[in-house]
Each structure stands twice: as C-alpha cells, then as structure tokens.
C-alpha cells in the first residue's frame, strides 16, 4: 500500500511543480493565460489536442466499454480519425481568421464572424453548460483512480479535493501553459503504462491476442461484432458522425487552435494524431483481458475493469504507476476545461456586461473564477448523483449543435444571419434537453420505423431540428446579417 501511495504522491507533486514552472519567463496577461501567447509549436499543440484522446473517459470508459459492451467500444477509435482528417481543412481556416483578430475564446470567433455579441453569449452559455459536467466527470474519474490504486488508503473524496486544489493552483498561475507542460508528462506515462498492460495482460493470461479474442467469442458469442438491433451498425455509424462533427466544437479544443504559432501545425497534427490515438487499442486490450479474468463487474462498475485486473495481476509498484497515469489523465483535460470555462465567462459574459472592462480586469476575473468553478465541480462530483451522468451524455450532443453555424460562417462572410444561427442553436439545444430529460430514443419517437432507423443516435434529431429552424429563420431574414465589409487588414482570411 505504501509503495503505490508514494508513487501517486510523487507524481502529484511533479505534476503541480511542472504546472507552476510552466509560467517561467511569461507575463500572464489574458492572451498568455488563455492561448499561450499564440506561440506554441507542433509539439505543444499536438499534446493539447491529444488531450482529448486520453481523458479519464477513455482511460476508464474505454476499457469499461470493451469489458461491458464489446464491439460498440470501437466507435471511440473511429470518430477521432474522421475528426482529424476534417481538421486538416477546418483548423487552418479558423486559425487564419482568429490570429490577426487576437481572439481568445470559441465564442469570440462566432461574435467576430457574425458581428453579433448576442450569438457570442449563446455560444458561451452552450460552452459552459457542456464544460462543467465534463470537468465533474474528470474529477469523479480521478477519485475512482486514486482510491482504487491506493488500495483505499486515500478515499475518493480526499482525492477529489486534492486534485481540485492542484488544478486551481497551477491553472491560476500558468493557465494553458500549465496544461501543455503537464500534458507532456501525462503522454509519456500513458504511452508507457497503457502499452505495457495492453501487451502484457493478453499474453500473460491467454498467450496472445488471437487466443484472447477467440476465448472471448467462445464465452460470449457475438460480443466482438455489432448486434442486429440496439447498438447496431446504424447506431455505430450515426454516433461516429455526430461525435466527429462535435469533436472540435468543444470550447477547450477550439481555443487550443489559437495557441498555434502557424497553421502548418494543424496539417502535421492531422497526419500524426490518427496513429497516435491507436494507443486506445491497448486500452481496449486491457478491458478485454479483464473480461474473463475478473468477471462480474456490472453496469458502471465495468469502468473499474482496468484497475481491477491490474491489481489482480501486478504488485503495488506497478499499480501505483497505473494510478499515477490515471491521475494525470484527469488533471490535464481538467485544467484545459477550467481555463476554457473561466475564460468564456470572463470574456464573453462578464466583458459585454461591464462597460469598464479592460483586458486586465477580464484576466483578473477569469483567474478569480477558477477556484469558484473548480469547487462547484468538486461538490457536484462528490454529491451529484445520476443526473451528472445524464448531463454528460448530453455533452457531445450539446456542442455538436454549434457545428452548422460554424460551417456556414467559414466563407468570407456568413451565409446566414446571426438570428438564424442563434435560432438554430437554441432549437437544437432545446431538443437535446427534452430528448435527454425524457430519455427519448428514435425507437420511442417512431415506434413503427424499421429497426435500422430506430437505432440511429437520437442526437441526429436535434441536429436536424437545428438545421430546419436555422434554414427557416435564414429565409425569413433573407437580408443577411449586417456584416460590415471586411477591413482590408483582414485580407488574410479571404
């Protein structure tokens, strides 16, 4: 017990120190704090964007889905690859527009494009509504990882508070630079730990991947392919499309685009990131290996499969290393979410409401919000029940509603009015809310539809409602938004 505890503690301290050291030599104004002064090269942007791949959701949830659901888990590998191929064309356009205008948040982009502060507020609210549950999930995951890998000697709630404190300290001090530096440590750890256990476990228990999968298929026929109904190929395809479109709509990843020094960074990343995310394959291998070794974890407990099989197999030292890797997977995305949520509230909600706001006061408000948002998230992680899980499932559907308005804005001027963009987003979010609150699926909405329609991801309904309302309002307000003629200085965007 003491060995794993010592390892966890050591990594915790190293992570905080790195996060704090990241500030060195930089005056932390708003632009440094939120987007690292737009000076990050390929490696840091790569690490920030790879942050999406390895959150606690992938670490615990990826192995948990492989263990509990089988083949449906494979969707996690698909949507990233598609999003990255899209990013090759999308992100340079976003960067080129944002760079000369010194944008710092996702909402800033919509405000500038549509010349509409109101749209900015809508996008800001949507962003924060999706981010807070995501932060709660990271903290919950952190609690689980630390309490499991310390063999219960650190309780989940102690871990959540310690993690929250660490996040607050280095986010306030270093902002997104802290995220980038700890991301470097995290990725080395994750690569080493996940690849090791993803290779070791199948060979140790089954003698290889082939024998492992054959044993699983024999014990659970049909587990390794998609079923005819429910999580069927139609479910899989519609989910992959929705999540691929929503991928860069998350405010923290959208804003990480602004950190890049030049636009070629994104093209290099689009080449490298698909390969890099194959590490998730080894997370699946660990989950599959656990299936016949530590059977019987039901429902949400499936998320414990990787940690349980590791404790079953390895000594305390190794378990401590795995726990440390898990700890970092919570801290890095957690810090990016915190920076992003606080920057959005300060920049896009506080600034328009306060006539006297300057860059300096906005930066102070943003940092002042860090402990507030962090403590709210920690309390929700400790006391919130099932509702948080429901909120989180909404997360992707919530951010995906921003995609049509973004796509339509990418030309020299938006193709629809700001009113149409707002109406579409609001209608889409309302649909997501109703569908989630009432637990609707396409099968309940259209009971007589053929099975392949019933299995479609219900998020598509919200996206379709969004598009219909957007089109109708766009036609009604045919005189396109009063977009001022682009100033010549903005020629780089054309």
């Amino acid at each position: 017990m003491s060995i794993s505890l010592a390892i966890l503690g050591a990594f915790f301290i190293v992570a905080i120190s790195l996060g704090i050291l990241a500030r060195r030599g930089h005056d932390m104004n708003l632009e440094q704090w939120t987007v690292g002064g737009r000076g990050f090269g390929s490696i840091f942007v790569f690490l920030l964007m790879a942050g999406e791949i390895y959150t606690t959701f992938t670490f615990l949830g990826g192995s948990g889905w492989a263990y509990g659901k089988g083949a449906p888990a494979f969707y996690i590998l698909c949507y990233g690859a598609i999003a990255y191929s899209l990013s090759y064309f999308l992100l340079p356009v976003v960067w080129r527009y944002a760079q000369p205008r010194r944008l710092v948040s996702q909402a800033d982009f919509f405000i500038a494009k549509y010349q509409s502060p109101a749209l900015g507020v809508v996008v800001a609210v949507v962003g924060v509504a999706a981010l807070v549950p995501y932060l709660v999930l990271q903290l919950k995951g952190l609690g689980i990882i630390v309490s499991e890998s310390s063999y219960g000697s650190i309780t989940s709630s102690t871990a959540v508070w310690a993690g929250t404190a660490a996040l607050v300290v280095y986010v306030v001090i270093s902002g997104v630079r802290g995220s980038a530096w700890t991301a470097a440590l995290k990725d080395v750890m994750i690569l080493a730990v996940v690849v090791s256990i993803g290779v070791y476990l199948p060979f140790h228990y089954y003698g290889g991947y082939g024998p492992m999968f054959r044993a699983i298929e024999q014990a659970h026929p049909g587990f390794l392919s998609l079923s005819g109904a429910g999580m069927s190929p139609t479910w899989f395809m519609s989910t992959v499309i929705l999540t691929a479109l929503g991928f860069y709509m998350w405010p923290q990843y959208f804003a990480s685009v602004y950190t890049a020094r030049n636009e070629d960074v994104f093209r290099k990343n689009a080449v490298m990131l698909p390969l890099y995310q194959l590490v998730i394959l080894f997370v699946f291998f660990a989950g599959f290996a656990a299936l016949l070794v530590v059977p019987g974890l039901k429902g949400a407990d499936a998320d414990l499969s990787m940690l349980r099989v590791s404790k079953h197999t390895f000594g305390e030292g190794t378990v401590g290393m795995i726990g440390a890797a898990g700890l970092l997977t919570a801290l890095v995305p957690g810090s990016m979410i915190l920076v992003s949520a606080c920057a959005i509230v300060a920049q896009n909600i506080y600034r328009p409401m306060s006539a006297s706001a300057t860059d300096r006061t906005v930066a102070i408000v943003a940092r002042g919000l860090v402990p507030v948002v962090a403590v709210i998230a920690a309390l929700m992680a400790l006391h919130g029940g099932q509702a948080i899980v429901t909120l989180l499932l909404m997360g992707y559907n919530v951010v995906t509603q921003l995609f049509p308005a973004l796509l339509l804005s990418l030309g020299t001027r938006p193709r629809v009015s700001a009113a149409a963009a707002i109406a579409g987003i609001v209608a889409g979010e309302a649909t997501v809310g109703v569908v989630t609150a009432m637990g609707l699926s396409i099968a309940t909405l259209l009971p007589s539809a053929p099975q392949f329609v019933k299995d479609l991801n219900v998020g598509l309904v919200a996206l379709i409602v969004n598009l219909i309302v957007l089109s109708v309002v766009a036609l009604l307000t045919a005189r396109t938004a009063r977009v001022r003629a682009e100033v010549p200085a903005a020629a780089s965007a054309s």
Partner: protein
Amino acid sequence: MASVIPKKPMRRYHLLAVLPALGLVAGIPFANRVDPYVLGLPFLLFWIVAWVVATSAIMGTIWLLDRRRGATERAP
C-alpha cells in the same frame, strides 16, 4: 505576426480525405463480422485499425502534395 497567406485553393487530390469517412462509417456494415481474424484481431476491429492507419497515410500524402505545390505555409 502572421504574414498574409493566400487562400489555399481546393485541389482534386483533397478529395482523398473523404476516404477515411467512407471506410470508418459506410464500410462498417460490411466489415461487421468476427471471422476471419487478422493479426489476432476480430475482423471488425482489424478493419477499423487498418483504416485509422490508412487515415494517417492519406493525410500524409495530401500534406506532401500540398507542400510540393507550396500551398502550405512553411514553418519558420
């Protein structure tokens, strides 16, 4: 500061970027089977892994072609 970068024209080979979506979305119903195992992986998982690797190769090809045309900004 950014230099003024001319808009990158759409080139025909950019259509290659549609392939990953075809393989990883449209291809799924056809690849949804366990047999044959390839490299120890059930066929569906092998199909997905192969397409993820292909995605990198395809985007790398596009990047190289873009660079040759001088369409992308060179890193300083």
